[in-house]
């Protein structure tokens, strides 16, 4: 309905291949970015920023990571939490070993460490496929968490095993540690996530993304075309783990301000997997939608029954959450495997054709 595309023709390939070829979408995206960068920090309160928006952004980043591996390259991973933990602990080690190092660099480096670990656990993907591989990634999940819990080197020999993220600043603003304001943390996360999301989009719409999708859709045909399966899959593992690693570092440094392995247990892996199934496999937008959904649902379950006068116990809410997620997973896999992103696509199609049905 709001779309007025007539007259928006493309006279070169660059414009035709743009991420947002329709002007209205570009305007919409600009509006969303403006709102996210300017309006939200001005009006949102501390609670909203630090318990909803920041985790949402971090989840979205991790979901992008998993989506690259599972949604685009077709390699199911249940080890997301392990790779996030890698990033978190690597960031801690970097930050404490080199206090002068810029925090952005620390995060990127820890993403790199996670990527390297991801590659190691991706090697079996040469020989094994499908759920065999999924099981192999569980090995990563359990092994890594065990490693970070049991080896005191990772926690700098702290007696409790729980450690606080050291304060660090960017452009003179603290973004980690107790002195950091919610606004600064939020803007920092947002910037990092926005840039990385753009990079992910660039990757998936180019040569590399097509190689991933070829492997996903028909690995034999892909190989016959000349795609090297192992290299391609390992690259997916690396990039995916990089994103998860950075997300893990953000989680520990910015969201919880403490580095602990338990935050990245198997349930975290499932949570991220649910995000991409509900949000949409093979969609960057879907990663955001899925993350938003999973962040908001518990809040919704907390608030609504109370508002209706039937407050639920915490345990019941947890069980309801389980049931709703489980049911939604099945529902989306049956009805719309491409998740909320696909629903949005369909809605957009409708809007573009409005008032015609087809």
């Amino acid at each position: 309905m709001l779309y007025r595309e007539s007259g928006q023709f493309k006279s070169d390939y660059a414009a035709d291949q743009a991420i947002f070829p329709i002007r209205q979408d570009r305007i919409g995206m600009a509006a969303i970015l403006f709102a996210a960068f300017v309006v939200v920090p001005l009006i949102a309160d501390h609670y909203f920023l630090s318990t909803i928006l920041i985790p949402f952004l971090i989840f979205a980043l991790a979901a992008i990571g998993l989506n690259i591996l599972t949604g685009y390259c077709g390699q199911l991973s249940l080890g997301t939490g392990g790779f996030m933990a890698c990033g978190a602990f690597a960031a801690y080690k970097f930050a404490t070993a080199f206090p002068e190092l810029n925090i952005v660099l620390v995060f990127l480096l820890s993403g790199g460490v996670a990527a390297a670990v991801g590659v190691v656990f991706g090697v079996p993907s040469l020989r094994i496929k499908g759920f065999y591989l999924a099981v192999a990634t569980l090995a990563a999940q359990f092994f890594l968490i065990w490693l970070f819990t049991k080896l005191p080197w990772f926690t700098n020999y702290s007696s409790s095993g729980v450690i606080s993220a050291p304060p660090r600043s960017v452009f003179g603003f603290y973004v980690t540690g107790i002195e950091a304001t919610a606004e600064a943390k939020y803007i920092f996360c947002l910037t990092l996530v926005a840039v990385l999301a753009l990079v992910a989009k660039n990757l998936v719409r180019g040569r590399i993304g097509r190689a991933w999708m070829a492997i996903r859709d028909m690995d034999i045909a892909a190989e016959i075309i000349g795609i090297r399966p192992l290299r391609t899959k390992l690259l997916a593992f690396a990039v995916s783990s990089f994103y998860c690693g950075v997300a893990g570092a953000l989680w520990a440094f910015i969201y919880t301000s403490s580095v602990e392995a338990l935050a990245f247990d198997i349930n975290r892996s499932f949570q991220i997997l649910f995000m991409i199934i509900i949000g949409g496999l093979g969609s960057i937008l879907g990663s955001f939608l899925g993350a938003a959904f999973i962040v908001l649902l518990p809040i919704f379950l907390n608030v609504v029954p109370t508002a209706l006068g039937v407050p639920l116990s915490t345990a019941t809410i947890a069980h309801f959450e389980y049931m709703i997620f489980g049911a939604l997973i099945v529902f989306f896999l049956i009805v719309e495997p491409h998740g909320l992103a696909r629903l949005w696509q369909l809605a957009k199609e409708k809007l573009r054709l409005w008032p015609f049905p087809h």
Partner: protein
Amino acid sequence: MPPPADRAHDTFPKLLRRNANLRAMRVAMREKEFGIWQSWTWAAMEAEIRNLAKGLAAIGLKRGQTIALVGDNRPKLYWAICAAQCLGAIPVPVYQDAVADEMAFVIGHAETHIAIAEDQEQVDKLLLVAQKAPALTRIVFTDARGMRNYADPALLGYEALIAAGKAFDDSWLDAEIAKGKGGDASVMLYTSGTTGQPKGVLLSFDNVIRTAENAITFDKLSEADEILAYLPMAWVGDHIFSYAEAYVAGFCVNCPESGATVMTDLKEIGPSFFFAPPRIFENILTQVSIRMEDAGAIKRWLYRHFMAVAKRTGIALMDGKPVSAFDRLHYALGEILVYGPIKNVLGLSRMRLGYTAGEAIGPDIFDFYRSLGLNLKQLYGATETSVFICMQPDGQIKSDTVGIAAPEVEIKIAENGEVLVKSPGVFAAYYKNPDATSGAKTPDGYYRTGDAGFFDRDGHLKIIDRAKDVGRLSDGTLFAPKYVENKLKFFSYVKEAVAFGDGRDRVAVFVNIDLEAVGNWAERNGIAYASYQELAAKPEVYELIGGCVEQVNRDLAADPQLAGSQIRRFLVLHKELDADDGELTRTRKVRRGFIAERYAALVDALYSDADRAHISASITYEDGRKGRLDADLMIRDVKAAA
């Protein structure tokens, strides 16, 4: 006549030069190819055309010779028009869907040596043509696909042609261009002609350019406009809109990817200036209705509601008539929810000016587009007048007239009602056909359009029929059968109508119902029927059609000249008129004379007092079998409106 404003540029090659200087970086042409709109600026286009002109010179195209252009709307073919004109040759665009025989006549008649063909399909046809028109010795193809196995020495690829032109230098070409004068022949367009062989209409640069200039001023077209070139290049309208006006005004012409993608391409480009014959507008409207039928209840309601609003206020708003603030608001809301989106999907969002011509357009169809806020207008014209005879000025649009005389056009109505025209656009002569030329012009230099019409109270010309078909009732009243029939056919329930009255005391008609529309109506009203014949004989259907006829009479009564030819009696035919039975031409025009003979019994009954008539007629079934069909038909009287 006032002197043209811009006499320094009296030919298209000179206009091209001017545009290349003035608008070097503006896009002159686009073509959808390889997934995107390939674009050429005026400067780039000039370079292409100059190379092409040199190539044509290299293969021997001389001043005064003709060159045939065969294919869909493609930039290279448009360039070839101008390239030929650079050399003083006369381009002859040929209907691309013509069969080889038709093409052979045109190419033979025009004594064409060189033809430029779009692709293999046209080359195949031209090779056949060359057997019948031996003068044709060079065939240039622009698309080399599938051409590798052709060994015919007449064939030459476009690239080879350009390469051959390298031998000619620029100053030589400049001199050739300078030799061109306004009075020279610029293009030859063959008119189909309902009878006999096509005639080649020679139009001079002055004809075409001055007409284009006038039309541009009249409709305030500018270099910012965009047009989609999708109608046959051999048709004068395309030549004027997509070539002449584009060169004069400097606007951009867009060529669709293929015939199959016109609608998609239309949507992408969103032209600001759009021409389509009534049939296309009707098809689009039908598509809109069909698609809306499939929509959900809310959308359907929105559509109906806001289309009703548009009907009330849209046209008044566009014509600048007073509209209440509430209606304006209501309409604005509709623009957001319905009109805007519909225009967008149809590709008409940016349409500033739309024209339709060629046939009468149904008032409902015409009003539909106008009520959406689209400035759709009608014009009246002919090949021989470089199109424009009458145009509708903004704000004075009626569905049943074709507007006032175009700038610099003088119109006279002859004794027999025929419209006579004198204008800068009137052609010089038919090619090699002096008899036809003299027959088409009055001694004082007016062109005989062959159409009958008259000016209404506001000075708008109303075309009613072909002049030769216009008759008179026994009391001398003007009777234009086609006008009456068209009025009836504008109702969706009426598929065909045949009007009688020449030499009789009153007008009577046969009506053919539209099975789909009337069938739907019957379903909605709970009327059961088993066959076309049964449905056609239902008294309720007679009521329905009677209502239509009365409405037609009211319309006719509004025009003093036509008030006397109101319909007094009608019957609904028991079978559909069919081209297989010879009742219609293959282009679905009624053959009035044949029908009058075949259904003589019914015609007699119409002019008697009987209220029933019997008919037995032979019919051809779809599988080719013949049979007889007997029927008793009712005849109804209709009151004349005051």
